[in-house]
């Protein structure tokens, strides 16, 4: 069974993330770039599926040159090969454009399962798995916490607001993993060394046959109207418990008319 796992490079959530004040888009230079934690969990599930059923894991990203670090990280975890969709013309793509480019790249791979994160930590649109499934004409099984494949049927437990459900679909499918799907493995030294010689193919918009007049910020389907930073809270009073701090909080809440 061949699996593609989508991995996105995102600003590290441990650092303070910023929007550029000129156009209110993500300032990718202001913080460290890392593989989105949710996507390393996707890689883990992809590896587990191929360990059980055989086949290969191809990791796929779309992003600027330095996004290749993210591919290397996934290769070091054990993925077999990588595809990097890389083209200046794709800069500023919205979700529709990104899904069109990624779908074109995924069509070249002929996989049975595509795995994504349920939502990226930078955009949080949680739309990519659905958009890819729609473009490919596949079923989508999203926000899964457990998954297994038997023959041509994928069974999964998914969890969403309000509860969980056991669901199934026929291959091929797009799966998106929920944060609670389990922890990813760490790349070991051997994996890191092996990753250096694993194949990474770089595909441009032209390689993917994308229509040049549909690409990039100028052809995006959404546009920023305005933006503003919000003044965040600053620290208030801080006391050390002298045995009366619980009562002290109660007095504070009364003064604030909260109780």
């Amino acid at each position, binding site marked *: 069974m061949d699996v593609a796992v989508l991995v996105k490079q995102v600003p590290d959530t441990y650092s303070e993330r910023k929007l550029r004040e000129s156009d209110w888009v993500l300032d990718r230079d202001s913080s460290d770039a890392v593989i989105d934690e*949710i996507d390393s969990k996707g890689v883990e599930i992809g590896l587990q599926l191929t360990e059980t059923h055989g086949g290969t894991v191809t990791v796929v990203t779309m992003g600027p040159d330095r996004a290749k670090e993210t591919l290397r990280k996934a290769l070091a975890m054990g993925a077999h090969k990588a595809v990097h969709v890389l083209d200046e013309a794709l800069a500023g793509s919205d979700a529709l454009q990104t899904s069109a480019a990624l779908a074109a790249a995924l069509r070249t791979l002929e996989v049975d399962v595509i795995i994504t994160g349920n939502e990226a930590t930078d955009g949080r649109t949680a739309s990519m798995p659905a958009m890819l499934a729609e473009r490919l004409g596949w*079923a989508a099984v999203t926000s899964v916490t457990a998954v297994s494949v038997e023959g041509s049927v994928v069974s999964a437990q998914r969890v969403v607001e309000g509860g969980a*459900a056991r*669901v199934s679909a026929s291959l091929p499918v797009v799966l998106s993993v929920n944060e609670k799907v389990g922890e990813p493995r760490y790349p070991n030294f051997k994996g890191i060394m092996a990753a250096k010689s694993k194949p990474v193919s770089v595909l441009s918009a032209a390689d993917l046959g994308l229509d040049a007049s549909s690409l990039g910020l100028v052809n995006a*389907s*959404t546009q920023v109207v305005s933006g503003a930073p919000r003044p965040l809270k600053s620290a*208030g009073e801080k006391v050390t418990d002298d045995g009366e701090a619980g009562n002290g909080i109660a007095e504070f809440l009364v003064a*604030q008319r909260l109780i």
Partner: protein
Amino acid sequence: MSEVIVLVEHADGAIRKVTGELLTAAARLGAPSAVVIGPAGTAAALTEQLGAAGAVKVYAAESVDPTKVLLTGQVAALQAAVAAAAASGGAQGPAAVLVAATFDGREIAGRLAVRLDSGLLADVVDVALEGGVVVATQSVFGGAYTTRYQVTRGVPVISVRGNSIDGAADPVSSPEIVDLATEVDAATTTTVSEWLPEEAGDRPELGGAKIVVSGGRGVGSADNFHVVEELADVLGGAVGASRAAVDSGYYPHQFQVGQTGTTVSPQLYVALGISGAIQHRAGMQTSKTIVAVNKDTDAPIFEIADYGVVGDLFTVAPQLASAVKTRKG
């Protein structure tokens, strides 16, 4: 006035709170049309409630059972509703499609945006009509920024965050019901074999609660979490948890507050034994008043606390609970 298509969420014969919020938002953009998916008769049974919440028209999509087939029925119904609204509204077409920004809603919106080749605006906290253009507001990085977006083509497909729209639309006495025929492609079908709903419980819903009391790793165990619950209960609040508390098995995942959990913005947020990692703060830093109890004086939660106590939560929280109880009598 253009129609604004709203996907209805309902359970046990009642529309969910978020559907009322979506209809309120829709009324700001045009004439709300509610799309109901369910077995035959569902729409008729909900029409009075939908009218009371502002729906002018109700589309009944009753050919696909959403309890058996996941989400593609909703996508097909919305697509059919958009087509019906375009046909009846002439060149104008519908002003927008609104769904709740849940995982399911965002998946539905993603498929629909591709199908309509329309701009998608996800997880918005406000919508407005400005000079005939639909403008949606997003809250980015846990409220650190506010951005406003519009679409440049198609009918805007918008997912709206729950508990972010206030007010109510004018009630409509007898909304018109229009039947929609929809079909789903078997190849794209995900089938549900069993639903495992969460127990609702007696406490207020986390996302909309006015008071939230959360516990972190400092609570130490599942058994100890009663300290958090007891304080929440005397204050009439909801219980939340940090990711570390959830991942350690102290409290169920649906109560996680933060970047990858629920975003809360209550009048009062009480953090017990939570360090205040940036990802936790992303889900609660817009709370009106923040109280923190942590035994580490350098815990980052104190940077955003209006009232911080350096101390042991196991002595401070019970004392606070009993002081509140005494005052409330």
